[in-house]
């Protein structure tokens, strides 16, 4: 999907590690979750609740809600507005929130 541009002047900070649907990935500290996924070649981050169609980030500025993902168990997060953190567990947002998964998440 995306790749880092070649910029000899760019500072080389240690990358952050995270997982997407269990697969280990790394990205630049300072990236948003959506940018980190794009940089790792992830084109699909959610399936729509209506038809299950695959979708990927679209506007990157917080208006389209296509980059919704589950982050550390919490769904409906806008990936383009959340800065990536070390060890984040990111998952595909599948359809509507599953009531059962949800109740486990919050320990109810």
């Amino acid at each position, binding site marked *: 999907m995306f790749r880092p541009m070649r910029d000899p002047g760019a500072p080389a900070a240690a990358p952050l590690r995270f997982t997407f649907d269990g697969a280990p990935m790394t990205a630049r500290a300072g990236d948003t979750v959506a940018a980190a996924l794009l940089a790792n070649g992830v084109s699909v981050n959610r399936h729509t609740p209506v038809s299950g169609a695959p979708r990927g980030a679209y506007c990157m500025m917080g208006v389209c809600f296509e980059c919704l993902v589950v982050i550390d168990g919490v769904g409906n997060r806008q990936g383009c507005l959340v800065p990536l953190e070390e060890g984040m567990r990111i998952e595909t947002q599948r359809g509507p*929130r599953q*009531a059962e998964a949800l109740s486990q998440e919050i320990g109810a």
Partner: protein
Amino acid sequence: MTTTSTADVVVIGAGIHGCSTALHCAQRGMKVVLIEKDHAGRHASGVNAGGVRQLARHVAEIPLSNHSMDIWHRIADLVDDDCGFVSDGQVLVAETEQELAVFRERVEDLNLRGFHHEELIDAKELRRLLPAVAETCPGGVVSRRDGAAVPFRATQAFKRKAVALGVDLREGVRVTGLTRDGAQWRVETAEGDVLAPKVVNAAGAWAGRLAASVGEPVPLEVIAPMLMITGRVEPFIRPVVILRGRKLSFKQFANGTVLIGGGYLGRAFPDENRTELDWDKLSQNARTVWELFPVMRSATIIRAWAGIEARMADEVPVFGPSAKHEGLFHQFGFSAHGFQLGPGAGSVMAELVATGATNVPIDGLRIQRFQTAASA
């Protein structure tokens, strides 16, 4: 153009009540003019919770509500649209044993009066109907024929059918005066007057002013009940849930979105067609859901809003002929629970307008009750 037109009946206000009355009058062959200051369904009728509920109604309303419910169950026959009506029942949840005891008395009382739509249920049946409800709730009351519809869509369907039957709908026209003109009523508007022997006041939050202008003041408060809706959540509940102790109504649609209400009030500015939300109260509303349905805790609130409507001091509508004037009828003040009554009230009102009488008992709803109180 300011010509004067004539009609058999003028209905003022094109909410679901005005539209339904206009429709039923047209079915009876009357020439109907329906006048609306904004557009049909702009206020309470278009933005309410859509509850189609017999459950927990005031006894005075039950006959009208029963009549209405029969119509809801064949609504498409009447308006050529199912209005999004689904009948999965409504459940009044008891949060404590004391509450359940009160509900038991109520159901027994209704049974004695010959009403059997409310049914007391125990914890087991409650859990069967609402698996996600908090485990501490000991039981409740169910009204199984109840359900919900899509309010704006329903009001539009009534409007369309009324117009198809020949009703002269005038939207964006404000009634500026209501006066006697010989045996007729003169309904004054900026777009011309309408002369008719019969007038129905179905002006919702604005009906009190109209009634007062003809010497029938009523204790009507303009309110703005608030609602909120969530994004899609995996379907987990079918009936509508209501509480009594704390304020809540809770309905999940088939598409997964959840409507949360309960009668918390925002601020109403009827002269500006404007409402302002009170987020402190919506927070309390959300808190109740948080406690009752843990599965909802990370659902997202997508929209919140408030409609403008009329609440009577006794929270019972004003329905029936004027106490003072021949040919004037009132149909307002439904106090945040009028949507379900719309279809039936329109049918009964049309009967009243056409024949002067109805077999459906409406005695407890008449405007006289306020005059009696005032003169007493």
